[in-house]
């Protein structure tokens, strides 16, 4: 009883740890992709001093729920 309980607990802990790690990695990858896209689309806005165009580009991030703020 004690042994099987401990094993269950251990397995649970392992699953939780694995989930956290993979989730973190996926989020990191997603965010770097988004930053990369926004970055390459903001080049001309920066070169030609066009805040409105930069804002339009950043507005696309509205669709991403876990981004609270973005700035150029």
């Amino acid at each position, binding site marked *: 009883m004690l042994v099987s309980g401990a094993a269950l607990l251990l397995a649970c802990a392992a699953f939780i740890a694995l989930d956290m790690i993979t989730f973190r990695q996926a989020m990191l990858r997603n965010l770097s992709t988004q930053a990369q896209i926004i970055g390459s689309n903001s080049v001309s806005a920066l070169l030609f001093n066009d805040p409105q165009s930069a804002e339009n580009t950043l507005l696309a991030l509205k669709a991403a729920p*876990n981004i609270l703020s973005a700035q150029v």
Partner: protein
Amino acid sequence: MALAVAWVLVGVSCLHAQQSKPTEYQVKAAYLYNFGRFVKWPPGLAAGKGDSFPVCVLGRDPFGSILDSTLAGEALEGKPVVIRRIAKPQDAPDCRILFVSSTEENHLKEILAAIDQAGVLTVSDIPGFSRRGGMIQFVVEGDRIRFEINLATAESAKLVLSSELLKVAAAVREMLGLEIDPYVQGSKPFHLPETHMDEHVGQRRGTAVSMCRVYCP
């Protein structure tokens, strides 16, 4: 799902870091170079045969030494930029980028005729330049320098202007004066209503379609 707080910082802007405000022609000189980064010239041009990238100023030079200091050591299309001050429109077809000084306003027609189809990107701050057959016209909006683009003239010279350049333009014109302002359109893709499209045939319809090519996803 996630309670994660994610901050995306896209680069670090130098917009706020500027110490003193650059002068009008410092900005225009920088833009002149930046235009070159967003335009593709057709291969096999007469102007492309040399091993340099000529940027020319026709008429009285409003830049002075600013143009030289801004473009010093820069390269476009893999070739070092050289600056030429020219007096005659006949010298213009050898240029890749031509800035037409406001002193030449009265000769605009013959200048544009002289470089017709030669693949020269024409830039000027002459009022109405983009309506009168020029490609890029500087306009001053408040304390900012912006520019208008006439896409039709650029396309007829086989120049390809990047959509990145078009999206920061104050206005993008087509030959028939049908105008679109990217900000009025907002983030919506630009579509003429179906019925509107059908009412117009020929050139006008062609214009709508070619603009759609630029702004539609």
